[in-house]
């Protein structure tokens, strides 16, 4: 059981003094699908931004056995696929193809390889017919899936998603759930959608006020009413 991601005693404070992470430690093994839950302001997004080096705190972050340092950031970024909450932030090219191709192109891969990867990524998110569509014209659900594809094309070892189901109507949400279920990739997903957690993720990490307050089997955590209430969560 290889370790895909390991975080050790991570601390971080923003410029204005706000302490966002107070000693976060956890480990994710290859193939794990883990949910990250907690109230707004718990530090979930901040934590995620540490996983591909956008933010740098005190402590250790190891991806696939490699320690995250400034020098190997470009390499780490090909291993950690971070998908932000707002798909508009991710789609900055005119066509879907160009957006999904950005990652591999930046990595300097030859055009043929780029093509293969783009097609594979679009296949994985069930959007093969959308190659030449204009990102600007897609629906929110479609954009979210394309956003995932833009990261899959880099062939990451771990997928980190921030609120993937936020803002989706029931149908788009169902499509997304099926997609996430079928993707054979290690996953860390932050969400408020407790039914999503129950359906897809065997393990849950609960965060509050910059710390991990629980880390274990989803079923156990969801049965613990005291824990849930204490951290602003509700049983689905």
């Amino acid at each position, binding site marked *: 059981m290889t370790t895909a991601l390991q975080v050790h005693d991570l601390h971080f404070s923003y410029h204005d003094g706000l302490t966002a992470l107070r000693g976060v430690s956890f480990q994710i093994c290859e193939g794990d699908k883990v949910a990250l839950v907690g109230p707004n302001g718990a530090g979930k997004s901040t934590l995620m931004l540490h996983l591909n080096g956008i933010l740098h705190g005190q402590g250790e972050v190891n991806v696939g056995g490699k320690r995250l340092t400034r020098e190997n950031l470009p390499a780490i970024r090909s291993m950690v696929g971070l998908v932000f909450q707002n798909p508009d932030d991710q789609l900055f090219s*005119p*066509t879907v193809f160009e957006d999904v191709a950005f990652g591999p192109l930046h990595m300097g891969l030859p055009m043929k390889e780029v093509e293969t990867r783009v097609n594979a990524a679009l296949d994985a998110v069930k959007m093969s017919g959308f190659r030449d569509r*204009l990102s*600007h*014209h897609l629906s929110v659900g479609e954009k979210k899936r394309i956003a995932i594809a833009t990261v899959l094309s880099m062939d990451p070892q771990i997928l980190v998603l921030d609120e993937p189901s936020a803002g989706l109507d029931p149908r788009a949400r169902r499509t997304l759930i099926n997609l996430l279920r079928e993707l054979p990739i290690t996953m860390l997903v932050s969400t408020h959608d407790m039914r999503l957690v129950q359906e897809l993720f065997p393990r849950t990490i609960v965060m509050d006020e910059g710390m991990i307050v629980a880390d274990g089997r989803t079923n156990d955590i969801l049965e613990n009413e005291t824990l849930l209430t204490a951290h602003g969560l509700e049983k689905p």
Partner: protein
Amino acid sequence: MLYSPEPLHIPDGFLSLTVSIICWVISALTISVAVSRSNKALGERQIPLMGIMAAFLFAAQMINFPVAGGTSGHLLGGALAAITLGPWAGMLVMTAVISVQALLLQDGGLLVMGANILNMGLITAAIGYGLYRSVSTGSRTLKLTVAGIAAWLSVMGGALFTSLQLWLSGTSQLQVVIPAMLGVHALIGLGEALITVAALSFIFQTRPDLLGKNSESAMGSRGWVVAGVLISLAVILLSPFASADPDGLERVAGDLGFLAQGSDAPYQILPDYTVPFLGETALSTIIAGMIGAAVVGVIIVLLGQAMKAKS
């Protein structure tokens, strides 16, 4: 500091008062025309549209891309603003951006703002729009190509005018500032061209109606083509001439009395209690005295108001 001063934002202190004032006059006149013309074209949509597009330009200028050796390139945007919003609205938007940069971020001086607006907002918009308008009936490829050239020329135009202003103020030597400014901006202009073309291409693909026949973009009259071409020609012709024969240019300027000579403080407006253009005559002394009296009078009035006003 994510926002770094561009070489074209002149700070206070580097231009003579005369040059500053002339630039203010030109800018103020152009802006007032722009205000009335864009009002006619856009009507009541004008304010929210231009305000938000000004914010867009300001923000877009912050996006950078690494060029080489730690330097990065970004957009100036005068050509893009004029092509997408129409010439007058583009000028107004750039004016707003430049003034906020100066006020809020001290990027560019307050007294020299007229010059900065002229260089970065008006010249760039005129060249950018004028050239683009000349191919308004052409194919998309033609439009994009011309837009790229126009964007490059607009940056060169801004650089040229900045250099001339610095030279006329006695701050820089012509034979140094022209090649330095134009050289650097020939490269910056390339970035501007690439970014402008890519941005326009994006808009053409996703919302071509914004650049089509009935859009703001097409509202400018053909007169702009003349203006744009003339200014571009001036830039193209003057730049190499100025670089190659700076002494020639200096001589001409000296003969015409434009150039601030040597260590005579170019910043004196009322040297020795005389008014410059009237020379040392009794008349000029009187006028100088009257100006001084007026200032004192204003002070007295203000003090009087203070007495009357409640504290």
